[in-house]
Structure formats: C-alpha cells, structure tokens
C-alpha cells in the first residue's frame, strides 16, 4: 500500500477519535457537575404522571405490517421511475414500451399482494 493512502486512513482515524471525544466529554461533564435526582419514581416511563399499565411489548395488528409492505411496493415503483425518466429520450416509442414493461414487472408485487388478499381487512 502506498504511504499516502496510509495517511488518508490516518485522517479517518483522527476524525473518528475526535468525534468520539467530542461526543463523550459533554456526557462526562454532565455526570461530574450536576446533582442527581434520586426520587423513587424517576425511572418509570413518562405517562403524564400516571403509573404505566402493562408493557410496551404488546401485539399490534398484523395488517399495519402488510400496509407498510404494500406502501413499499408503490414507493419503489415511484423511486425507479426517476432514473427511467432521466434515460427517456432518443427513441420515444421504444422507451415508452420499456417503461411499461418495467412498471408492469414491478406491479406484479402489488398483484401478488392483491391475490393474497392483503387489501381486504
């Protein structure tokens, strides 16, 4: 490895170290110079002063998860249309057919979800 590459990595190391120190010092300072509250109920989660009921680890309806996945399918559709539009140009008809093929293949994910009955709840 050429030496100048090594110094480049050294810069990264120095950057990491400085970042670590920069993040740690305020935390340490706060621990050292602030008084600490020792109230009995300090560490329970904040529910406007009420005692929390049950745990945060509860079951959610699975349809929310499916909803997120379907959104992802639409989202990826839109995302991939941007590069397609940038490449669109010299051969309009060929590119149009290409885009329709592309979107059609991507839409199969939605069709699959449709067939599985995701849209019915």
């Amino acid at each position: 490895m050429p030496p100048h590459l090594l110094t480049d990595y050294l810069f990264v190391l120095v950057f990491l170290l400085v970042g670590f120190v920069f993040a740690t010092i305020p935390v340490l300072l706060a621990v050292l110079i602030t008084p600490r509250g020792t109230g009995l109920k300090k560490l329970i989660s904040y529910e406007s002063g009420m005692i929390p009921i049950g745990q945060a680890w509860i079951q959610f309806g699975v349809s929310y998860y499916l909803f997120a996945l379907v959104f992802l399918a639409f989202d990826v559709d839109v995302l991939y249309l941007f590069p397609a539009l940038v490449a669109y140009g010299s051969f309009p008809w060929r590119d149009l057919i290409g885009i329709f093929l592309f979107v059609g293949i991507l839409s199969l994910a939605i069709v699959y979800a449709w067939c599985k009955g995701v849209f019915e709840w």
Partner: protein
Amino acid sequence: MVERFETPPPVQLGILNQMLDLCRANSLWPMTFGLACCAIEMMAAGASRFDLDRFGAGVFRPSPRQSDVMIVAGTISKKMAPIIVTLYDQMPAPKWVVAMGNCAISGGPFAYEGQYAIVNGADRFLPVDVYVPGCPPRPEALIQGLLELEDQLTGGAKRNYLRRFKRHPGNDQE
C-alpha cells in the same frame, strides 16, 4: 420540610457552581401543567402580553425530563398529589418548585374542618422554594416569583449580573 431527594454533584468548585447557577437562573424551563384556575394566569404569563420569555423562563416543556421548574398552579386534590410527586421525581436535578396561588400554598379556601378532598399546600409533599400568593395571582406576581427564584439561585439581585435593569427600586441594599 420535605426532603429534596438529590445527591450533590461529584465535582464541586465554588466559582463553577456560581457560574452554573447563574446559567440555570437565567434559563429556567417550567413544566407545562396546570391544576386549576391559577394555570390560566400562568398561561397569560407565558403568552405575549406578559411574556415570561423576557426572563428566560418562558420555555414551557411538555415533558418533565426536560424541565427544571415545577409551577404548582392550582388546587391539589388528594387524587392528584401522587401524580404530581411522580412528575417531580421524573424531573432531572437540579429542580425547583414554585407554589402558585393560595391553594398550592396552604389549601386556600379549601382549608376548613371536615374537608376531605384537597391537600392543604404543596409543601406537604414537595420541597417548595417560592410561594406566590394570590387567588389567583396576577401574571406579574408569577413573574415576580420566578425572579425571586432566580435571586435564590444566584444569591441576591445584585449577583444576577445578566439583569441590566434595576429590579427592586428603592431596595438596592440587599
């Protein structure tokens, strides 16, 4: 006198503590909660006409984790008292309590024989630093109370260098 439930900081230097107290005094962050009609006056004190922000104390926080002043604004029912204690416990130290209005000071009009629902004063269960009398107190009174708290922190009006104007006309000796 109620115990404060605070451990002192590991590092204590006189001048450093004074500087920190000066900083704390000039950016008191009250917690957003009201118990009764005093809260209306507290809101007025925070709004544009009376403008608590002039004194650095207008940043009402919606969570006790971010606030250091608890303004007990109103009547404390026996049902509400443990909730207020929880909120006080959840505030990070250093923290201060302002008892606003007669109810929070001593029960006010609810302090009578055979009364069964109201706690007669916040200092029965919280370490109160400043009492603001009134039923309800005017917003100016609350502002005066917070300035009093700042004076307690910095050790007197003369020590609070960031206040360039005279706060106690005719009472500069203190």
